[in-house]
C-alpha cells in the first residue's frame, strides 16, 4: 500500500508549493513503469486531502506509456507490459520514459 505514501507526498508537495491556495484539481502523471497503481492513489487521495487545502479537489490521472530502447538492435519501442522486452527478442534494454510519478499542474480557485 505504498500508494498511501504517494498520496501523502502529493499533498505535501502541493501544500508546500501553494500553502494558501484552495486547490480544486490536481493533475498527476503516473508512468506505466512507475510501479504505482492509479486506482489505489485515487482511493487514498480523498483520505489524505481531508482537512488540507486540497480537500474536495478532483484528481486527474494520466498514464503515459513507457518508452524503451534496445541495446542490441538499437530500435525504440513501447513495451506492452511491466517486463520490457524488445520485439527482436533482446532483454538488453534501457528504459527511456515511463518511470515518472509527476504532479504536472494544479487548478487553483
Amino acid at each position: 500500500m505504498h500508494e498511501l505514501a504517494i498520496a501523502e507526498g502529493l499533498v505535501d508537495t502541493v501544500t508546500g508549493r501553494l500553502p494558501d491556495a484552495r486547490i480544486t484539481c490536481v493533475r498527476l502523471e503516473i508512468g506505466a513503469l512507475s510501479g504505482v497503481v492509479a486506482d489505489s492513489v485515487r482511493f487514498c487521495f480523498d483520505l489524505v486531502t481531508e482537512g488540507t487545502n486540497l480537500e474536495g479537489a478532483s484528481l486527474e490521472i494520466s498514464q503515459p506509456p513507457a518508452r524503451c530502447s534496445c541495446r542490441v538492435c538499437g530500435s525504440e519501442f513501447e513495451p506492452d507490459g511491466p517486463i520490457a522486452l524488445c520485439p527482436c527478442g533482446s532483454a538488453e534494454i534501457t528504459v527511456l520514459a515511463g518511470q515518472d510519478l509527476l504532479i504536472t499542474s494544479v487548478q487553483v480557485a
Partner: protein
Amino acid sequence: MCATCGCSGSAVVRLVVAGPADDQDPAGQPGHGHDHANHQGNPNHHDHADGHSHAGGHSHDHPNGATHQGDSGQLIGPAGTDRTVQLQQKVLAKNDAIAERNREWLADRGILAVNLMSSPGAGKTTLLERTARDLAGQIAISVIEGDQETALDARRILAAGSAVVQINTGAGCHLDAEMLAAGLRTLDPPGGSIVVIENVGNLVCPALFDLGEAARVVLASVTEGADKPLKYPHMFRQADLVLLNKTDLLPYVDFDPRGYAADLRKVTPDALLLQLSATTGDGIQAWYDWLRRRTPLRPE
C-alpha cells in the same frame, strides 16, 4: 497508518536501539484507533457510475459547476476564476531530497550503505548474522532493521556482534529516507564501515523509495519459487545485485536456477546474480568480495 484501510493514523513509526537488556517488546506500545464507519461516509468518495470519464478512467462531478473543456483536461470555473498552476514536480521529491542528503552524509564519512530488500523469510537477517560474524575484525558492519513490529531481528544482529537500530514502521510497508536519516543519526556509524539497511520484508513497496543507499540488493531464496522476478519486476529492475539464497535446499525444491537467471535477465539485464547459502556458507565469499570492493577507505 491503518492496516485495514491504509489511512494515515497517528504517528506510529518507532525507533528502538536494541541493547543486551532490551527485553521490552515494542509491540506493547499503544496503537491507533478510529472508526472505519467514518470512511464509508466520507463525502469526498464520489460516484464513478455516470459515464463521464477522464483520460485516466477517472470520473467525477464538479460540485462548483465547473466543466471540462475539450480534450485538454483544462478545468474552467463557472466564472472563469480558476487558474492552472504548472508544477511539473515529482511526487516523491521530498523523499528524494532527503535521500540525496543521506547519500551525501554517507559519502562524506566514507560509509557504504546497502539497501537490502526481499520478501519475508528469504533470509535477510540470517545473511546479516553470518556476514557480521565472518567479517568481524575486517570491516565494521552496522545494521538498520526495518520491521513492522518487534525488535526480534535487532536482537539477533546485536548477538552477532553488530551495532543495530531497529525501526518499527507500525503498519507501514517500507522504509523511507526520513526514517533512514533518523536511524543514521542514532547509529552514528564510523567512517570506512558498511551500513546495511534491512528493509521491511516486501517485494512491492520498498522499490519506490530511494533511501540514499549506494547499492540495492534483492535477496531471493529457492524456497520462494523461481517466478519472483517476473511477478515483481519493479523490485528486481532496481537491483544492483540479486542474491539467491538457500541453495543448500535446491535438492528438495522444484527450482531451476538457470531458468531463474534467464528470467531475471529479462527484467534487469545489468544486475549481478550470486548464488549462496547463508546457512552453510556455500558461495558466500562472492558476497563478501562484492562488499569489500565497494567499501570506501576510511577517510584520513
